[in-house]
């Protein structure tokens, strides 16, 4: 544990260092873009004012030697000013921008008591100040954290996440986010998000315009593309033919000419590519490390493993997420049909590797559990509860599912697997009699049997703990629907107890 702590401090330092370097790197990448825009701005301002004389004067000045120097100096000064302003705004409004982009809404304790309690408790365990809580009203299951330091962090979960996960699983996801807040991953991630968004802006605007035109009619889109694109392509050979003459006349002028020809390409393609590469380079192991921290904090890696599997199965369709903020989320939120360009540069490690790493911590998680969680996620995707559903855990969420054939057998199965112990029995954390017991159940306690595991039964206790019980423990079946309701605080648990034969069919 001590080593773990040292590791965390190291990571905090590393993240702070990376954040500073990142801002510098973004500034360097941004400078030509800003210079380009500032140049345009100057010409536009002159034209907009209608001061033709000034416009001519500018043209005169550019052709003259000293005039050129003045022009360059003004452009440089303007660029640096804009850059400083952008950097300030970036720091000041980074998390607000990210929250706005995601469409997150702040929630209070009264609105989401379960989520609030989960976050509150885990914060106590991590010794963190409680972050502000936000909810995205979307059926997709995902979460992220943002903010420049732990004191001003925000934690965002989707409605779908709360509907999909049970309490232990939600705990795992929240712990992952808290770990990222605590070791300053969120600072790095937030700066990256805003930086990438900024550098991707010119490309994004052009793409958005053409998308819009193509939606009107394909001919309009192609028409404008050819109208703008062909002359551009045509000028390239012409420009190249000029380059030789330019260099022959004046080397500096030639360099400047080539530079100004390449600048648009850099602004629209080069800068966003560099931004994506920076992101991939910076965020390599961070998700794995945060997963490990989450397992340490909750002391229950299986929760996070199941949560990741469920989220992988459910996908993130319908989530409003830009390519720039994708790396902040717990699991990759970009749909598989998003632009190739954005998928190549995904900063998320493969989900199955993460699940395997988490499942290997602690006692190990049986593959069947992971598979079931994935299937539960896939079912959730095909039949999600209504977009603005009742609070997570309400039985209404199950009843509200459109497919009654799916819902009814699970409920009867749930009632039939509830037992009352007729003698005291020991609870184990793993299906192994040699493992340390995790608790004692008194005679008369209610349990729900989830599945068999060798000589043991995997059970859910009435106080919401998952544990293993010896198969020989004496118990009697209880046929009370009311018991099923009190034992199951989440519809997804019922999905877990679905009988095996249903999976085959």
């Amino acid at each position, binding site marked *: *544990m*001590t080593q*773990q*702590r040292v590791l965390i401090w190291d990571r905090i330092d590393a993240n702070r260092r990376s954040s500073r370097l990142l801002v510098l790197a973004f500034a360097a990448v941004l400078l030509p873009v800003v210079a380009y825009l500032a140049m345009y701005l100057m010409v536009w301002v002159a034209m907009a004012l209608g001061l033709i004389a000034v416009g001519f004067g500018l043209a005169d000045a550019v052709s003259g030697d000293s005039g050129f120097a003045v022009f360059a100096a003004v452009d440089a000064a303007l660029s640096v000013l804009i850059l400083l302003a952008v950097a300030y705004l970036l720091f000041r409004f980074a998390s607000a921008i990210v929250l706005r982009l995601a469409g997150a809404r702040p929630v209070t304790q009264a609105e989401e008591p379960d989520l609030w*309690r989960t976050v*509150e*408790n*885990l914060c*106590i*365990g*991590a*010794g963190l100040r409680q972050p502000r809580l936000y909810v995205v009203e979307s059926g997709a299951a995902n979460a992220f954290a943002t903010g420049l330091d732990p004191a001003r962090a925000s934690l965002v979960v989707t409605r779908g996440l709360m509907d999909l996960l049970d309490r232990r699983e939600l705990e795992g996801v929240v712990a992952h986010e808290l770990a990222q807040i605590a070791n300053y991953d969120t600072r790095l991630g937030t700066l990256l998000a805003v930086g990438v968004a900024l550098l991707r802006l010119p490309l994004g605007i052009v793409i958005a315009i053409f998308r819009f035109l193509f939606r009107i009619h394909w001919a309009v889109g192609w028409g404008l593309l050819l109208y703008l694109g062909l002359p551009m392509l045509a000028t390239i050979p012409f420009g190249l033919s000029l380059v030789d003459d330019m260099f022959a006349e004046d080397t500096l002028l030639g360099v400047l000419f080539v530079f100004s020809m390449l600048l648009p390409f850099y602004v629209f393609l080069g800068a966003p590519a560099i931004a994506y590469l920076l992101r991939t380079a910076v965020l*390599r192991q961070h998700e*794995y490390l945060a997963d*490990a921290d989450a*397992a*340490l*904090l*909750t*002391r*229950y*890696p299986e929760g996070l493993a199941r949560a990741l599997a469920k989220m992988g199965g459910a996908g993130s369709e319908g989530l409003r997420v830009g390519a720039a903020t994708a790396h902040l989320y717990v699991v990759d939120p970009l749909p598989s049909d998003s632009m190739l360009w954005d998928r190549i540069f995904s900063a998320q*490690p493969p989900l199955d*590797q*993460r699940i*395997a*790493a988490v499942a*290997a*911590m*602690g*006692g190990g998680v049986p593959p069947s559990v992971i598979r079931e969680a994935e299937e539960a996620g896939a079912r959730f995707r095909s039949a999600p509860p209504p977009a603005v559903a009742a609070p997570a855990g309400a039985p209404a969420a199950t009843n509200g599912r459109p497919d009654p054939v799916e819902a009814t057998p699970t409920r009867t199965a749930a009632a039939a697997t509830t037992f009352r112990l007729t003698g005291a029995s020991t609870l184990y*954390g793993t299906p192994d009699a040699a493992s*340390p*017991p*995790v*608790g*004692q159940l*008194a005679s*008369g306690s209610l349990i729900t049997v989830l599945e068999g595991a060798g000589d043991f039964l995997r059970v859910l206790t009435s*106080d919401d*703990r998952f544990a293993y019980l010896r198969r020989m423990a004496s118990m009697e079946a209880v046929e009370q629907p009311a018991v099923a309701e009190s034992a199951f605080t989440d519809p997804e648990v019922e999905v877990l107890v679905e009988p095996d034969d249903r999976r085959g069919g």
Partner: protein
Amino acid sequence: MVPIIIAVVIGVIVLIAFVMVGIYNGLVRSRNRVGEAWSGIDVQLRRRASLIPNLVETVKGYAEHERETFEEVTRARSMVEQAGSAGEAAGANNMLTQALRHLFAVAENYPELKASTNFMDLQKELSDVEEKIAFSRQFYNQNVLDYNNRIQTVPNSMIARNFGFKEAEFFEAEEEGRAEVKVEFGSQD
């Protein structure tokens, strides 16, 4: 030659002094962190204790002749409130847990009590506090481990001994409700 030796000696002494000040400050910081973590547990223990009178009154309303159980709970509660050290508090808290378990076992025999919303609310709140105690215990013990490791290892131990840094007590729960987790990394690049 002599002035150089004197300068080197003074330099070394100053260096050692700096290192010692650094170590001392680190130990103080670590000890304060333990204290801070302890206050986190203390708040939750008090919250739990403050729920007890209400709970006892509620149960009494339905099951008045379970006097022994009530006394046991009340006794355990006052022990929690009077506990001085972490070890004492942990012991008292475990006693309270036991007593509450008896109380809830008794409650099982009174269906009306079990159905009363007041009782259910209290039960829910108690389980919330117990979870918070478990989490704050985890955080506290982590800090204690860090602090104890520091003051027991060389060279910190020499300074710790001279300046009266005492080992902090762990807050031990009677049963490990939350299993330990081993974190390992295979190769997944």
